């Protein structure tokens, strides 16, 4: 007599597990191995040949290969055809490894290869297509989504899948339609958009005294339409007179009269009252954390003092300088030249 207790016995559960372990891989598609795409020419819009290579992963008969050209490599995402690409005139000019294929159908961004279904080997297979027109958008990569089927018309369940990546690249310069630019100016005073400065590139801070903190300020404005943003570093040795160099704190530190101290920051301060907060509506251009704390000063040559991680309209930064001196500071005229270097980001 049938009993559910028999079905839930240890033997029953073990049988289910075995079935699961051995049955699942047969049904699941695996990725084609060592996939690659070689574009004979990667100039945008030119007619060229593509060679697609891969190893078949699953030892099953294959009757067709589906090649779908999309911007996105993920097989289950909607396919947007690469701008300018055209494979409707493609000719299968060479094949190696698993052979016997011919083109069953082709559209602007789709090729189906067909053959009499046959078992695949583990050799590297290559398929060269002539007369393909390259995409025209050099700013974006594209992909060929590959699928293998046991049917001859790329229908039914897939056996293996995988994508190969390609990108067109102009031999001269790979840039978007709008040329990126980096705008930068430095002076004692600058206008927000760098169209004017007071053309004064130095400042006299006065006479050093242990009882007084000397202050000064300069300004710089920066902006870029480059997608990577910008970074500004401050370079140059701290204030010095001959071999005597005024120390500069390596971490943000409060101003202390009577000590040898040279530091800068990029925000408004109360002690001493100097500087201004960054001006400009663009929020992603900021002072670096170490140089953005009010009443705390630091100077390490080469440090990034301001940056933006992406496109930034013009932003103006006011740099505050403080100098303190101790009684035993060697007499002399202490000077420095700070070079602010603005660069794009990669």
């Amino acid at each position: 007599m049938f009993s559910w207790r028999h079905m839930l016995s240890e033997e029953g559960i073990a049988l289910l597990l075995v079935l699961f372990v051995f049955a699942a891989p047969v049904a699941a598609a695996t990725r084609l191995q060592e996939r690659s795409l070689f574009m004979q020419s990667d100039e945008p819009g030119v007619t060229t040949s593509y060679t697609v290579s891969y190893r078949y992963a699953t030892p099953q008969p294959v009757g067709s290969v589906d090649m779908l050209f999309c911007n996105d490599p993920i097989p289950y995402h909607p396919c947007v055809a690469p701008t300018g690409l055209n494979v409707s005139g493609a000719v299968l000019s060479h094949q190696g490894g698993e052979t016997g294929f011919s083109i069953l159908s082709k559209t602007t961004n789709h090729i189906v290869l067909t053959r009499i279904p046959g078992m695949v080997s583990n050799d590297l297979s290559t398929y060269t297509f002539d007369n393909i027109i390259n995409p025209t958008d050099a700013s974006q990569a594209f992909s060929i989504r590959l699928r293998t089927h046991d049917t001859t018309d790329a229908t039914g369940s897939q056996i293996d899948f995988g994508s190969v990546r390609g990108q067109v690249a102009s031999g001269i310069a790979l840039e978007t339609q709008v040329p990126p630019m980096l705008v930068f100016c430095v002076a004692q005073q600058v206008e927000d958009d760098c169209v004017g400065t007071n053309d004064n590139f130095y400042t006299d801070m006065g006479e050093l005294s242990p009882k007084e903190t000397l202050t000064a300020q300069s300004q710089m404005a920066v902006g870029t339409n480059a997608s990577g943003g910008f970074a500004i570093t401050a370079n140059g040795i701290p204030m010095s007179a001959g071999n005597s160099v005024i120390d500069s704190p390596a971490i943000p530190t409060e101003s202390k009269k009577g000590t040898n101290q040279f530091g800068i920051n990029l925000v408004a301060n109360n002690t001493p009252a100097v500087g201004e907060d960054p001006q400009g509506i663009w929020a992603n251009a900021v002072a670096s954390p170490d140089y953005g704390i009010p009443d705390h000063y630091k100077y390490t040559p080469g440090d990034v003092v301001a940056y933006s991680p992406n496109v930034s309209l013009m932003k103006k930064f006011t740099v505050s300088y403080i100098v303190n001196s101790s009684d035993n500071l060697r007499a002399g005229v202490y000077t420095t030249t700070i070079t602010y270097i603005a660069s794009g980001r990669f």
Partner: protein
Amino acid sequence: MREIRGMKRFKSIVAAGFAVLIAASYVMPAVTASAVSSAALSIVPKKNYVIEPGKSVKDTLIIRNLDDKIPLILTLRAVDFTFTDDGGTPKLMLDPNAPQTTWSLRPFMTIPKNVTVAPGSSKTVDMSVSIPAGHGAGSYYSAIVYSSGSGEGGNVGLSASGVTLAFVTIPGKVNEDLQLQKFGIYKPAKLSGEQGNFMFITTEMPQMIAYNLKNNGNVTEAPVGNITLTNMFGQKQTIDDINPNRSLALIGQSRTFPSCIKLKTQDVNFNNRTTKTADCESPSLWPGMYTATLDAFYGQNGNNTKEIIRTATFWYLPWWFILLVLVVLAVAGYYVWRIVRRIKYGRPGPRTKSSRQK
């Protein structure tokens, strides 16, 4: 006689010249040493080239002097650079004695040494990159530094420099190896000094998912692909482009690539050019557990396309939700306690209106 007359004429010319110079020095405005060069410029921040061995590329650099009063006098030089951290800020090797890097483009690049740009105008200067025949495939990069003169006088002199990053890809068989090191929700660095970090649990609405890749190959890499975010109920949302800025992992760098869960783009006007900007906005996630799946691809032309797949789990538990859960648990605990007491000791359970009436 003729000689004496000639001498007199020469003396009068010299005297007149001095007179003109002295007069000019009084009439013309005083020009300080600091006003030698403008420090307001516009340059191209980045150049990319693909050059086959044995071939060269001729290109131009456009430099604009934004100052309409004084000329921009620049000194140009090529320096090597590497990465500063896991971001995209270049670390310039400005020391003239700095050793040449293995990826240096300097030996192949030709740029002018000095450029002067008239006030308020632009200048186009020629540059070229020549790759010797038989040179191996890979990525090569250096930076062009445009240095303006520095201010002289006073205690603090100022100087401005701009930098163009130049990248060259030499096609062919290359060594490509990106190793995924971290993947998950990401909190970017804050102005308060807090460093950017990956998190497993967050009480703040997560806005970014990031992945960190170590580049062990000999080429720069810009991965492409997607991230799928799935909540506890199986609802999915996709980050379509995991590298919208086409950011690069330099040779040897561990690069963090952050992506907004929900991206807000807008067109803005920058110097009379329309530019698209992108920023994160709140993805309006519900509290709970999420699973993120990364599917990233990379591979140069003619080389294997490699795929990185990784799944990460994280919890979004805002404080209000934690408090709500605690209150619900406390209330439930209280009622359970009352019921247990009633069952165990026969004491009354939770007071209800009907029990009070009795």
